[in-house]
């Protein structure tokens, strides 16, 4: 009992360390460095300690210090309680969706089965959608409580866009559920040990539509109409300052990681290396004993998993700095008139193929 609790706590702390402690701050730097690279600039390289810049990595520390020490500002006429609560409502769902996402398989360590997922739910994928959609409240309340026209416009756009793409996102994923016959993310991951069972081969259209819908759900360029700097100042977080402002960004970056993780689990073979089964890897490291071989296998799998997540983050960054922003009516049209009918067709075609192969 106590051992289980300690293992669960270690896993939770690991996830928080890697999302809040590593990805969220590092991605602020990566985003600037990537834009600099693509626009042929030198980019973030000014912050230094004793003359050392380390590729501008000290900007992360500078940003964090600045955000903590800025004035926490609430405008006149704003609802103070809701204004303070909304960054929390936006950030918490982003943090806890990782509870059902496995970041590795099952390993026998010291005669104990360790499953690298915090809560192995049967309805894993539904949990992700349910929790992720709660973040909409945070954004809407943020815009509504600020008593600012730009914020309100931004939050109305956010609400419409997020709920529209939630429908599409739910339907694009049905095809992959039909193929695997499970919503348990650990099970879906385990099936993909066979390279030809990877979701990207079985559901190529589902993959592209899900990628599009999830970028729209996260409100990143080219779907960033809710924050649109050139139209709405900063959209729903115009009236936010200090770390409250930073929390919206943090939520966005952590959601990027979550999207990458879900895409990896569903479409890119989870923690598996192509053509290399866990049994083969275990036999290679047999000389280390059962526990030793399992530890090596676990490290390899976690490394491979986060490697794939980093690939998806890189893909989202490339898209962000390549495409211009869509007009709002184009965004809504893509969601309702293109992705929704196409995903219904995808479900039916998947069904036909499965029945034909039976």
């Amino acid at each position, binding site marked *: 009992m106590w051992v289980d609790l300690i293992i669960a706590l270690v896993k939770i702390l690991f996830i928080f360390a890697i999302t809040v402690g590593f990805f969220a701050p590092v991605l602020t730097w990566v985003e600037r460095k990537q834009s600099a690279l693509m626009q042929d600039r030198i980019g973030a390289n000014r912050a230094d300690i004793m003359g050392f810049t380390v590729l501008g990595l000290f900007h992360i520390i500078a940003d964090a210090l600045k955000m903590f020490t800025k004035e926490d500002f609430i405008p006149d006429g*704003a609802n103070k309680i809701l204004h303070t609560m909304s960054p929390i409502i936006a950030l918490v769902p982003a943090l806890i969706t990782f509870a059902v996402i496995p970041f590795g398989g099952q390993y026998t360590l010291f005669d104990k089965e360790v499953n690298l997922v915090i809560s192995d739910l049967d309805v894993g994928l539904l949990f992700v959608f349910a929790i992720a959609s709660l973040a909409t409240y945070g954004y809407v309340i943020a815009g509504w409580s600020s008593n600012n026209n730009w914020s*309100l416009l931004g939050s109305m756009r956010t609400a419409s866009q997020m709920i529209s793409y939630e429908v599409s996102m739910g339907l694009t994923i049905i095809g992959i559920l039909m193929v695997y016959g499970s919503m348990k993310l650990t099970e879906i991951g385990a099936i993909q040990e066979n390279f030809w069972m990877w979701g990207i081969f079985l559901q190529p259209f589902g993959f592209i539509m899900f990628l599009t819908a999830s970028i729209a759900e996260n409100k990143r360029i080219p779907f960033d109409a809710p924050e649109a700097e050139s139209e709405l100042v900063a959209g729903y977080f115009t009236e936010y300052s200090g770390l409250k402002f930073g929390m919206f960004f943090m939520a966005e970056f952590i959601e990027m990681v979550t999207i990458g993780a879900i895409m990896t689990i569903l479409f890119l073979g989870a923690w598996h290396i192509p053509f290399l089964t866990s049994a083969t890897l275990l036999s290679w490291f047999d000389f280390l004993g059962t526990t030793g071989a399992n530890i090596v296998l676990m490290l390899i799998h976690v490394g491979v998993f986060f490697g794939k997540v980093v690939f998806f983050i890189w893909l989202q960054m490339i898209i962000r700095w390549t495409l211009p922003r869509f007009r709002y009516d184009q965004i809504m049209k893509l969601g309702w008139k293109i992705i929704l009918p196409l995903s219904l067709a995808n479900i*039916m075609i998947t069904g036909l193929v499965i029945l034909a192969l039976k």
Partner: protein
Amino acid sequence: MLEQYLGAAIMLLMALGIAGGMVMMTSLLGPKREFPDKMEPFECGESQLVSPHQRFSVKFYLVAVLFVLFDIEAIFFFPWAILFRRLGMFGFIEMLLFVLILGVGLLYVWKRGGLDWE
């Protein structure tokens, strides 16, 4: 059954702690210098011309209503998709009828201009 959710519950508490701690930290550490001009809501240098709390386009309500309809229908797909292999041909034809009804609804909204943003 419920102990499955224990990990997620612990994570929720810790996430609330992290987020709450961040808000506390930033309001405690930052300076507080308030004067009337600064406290005005930002409107590109002007004083606020109109209050944000007034009517806005009915389109947003319409999208919300459509969302409720279509999201509930999307939820019906989940259990069906999981059991699809066991249901076989029967399940496929049943769902084909369901999708047709859903498609007629979508077509109706589409033709009535419910999905247009001018």
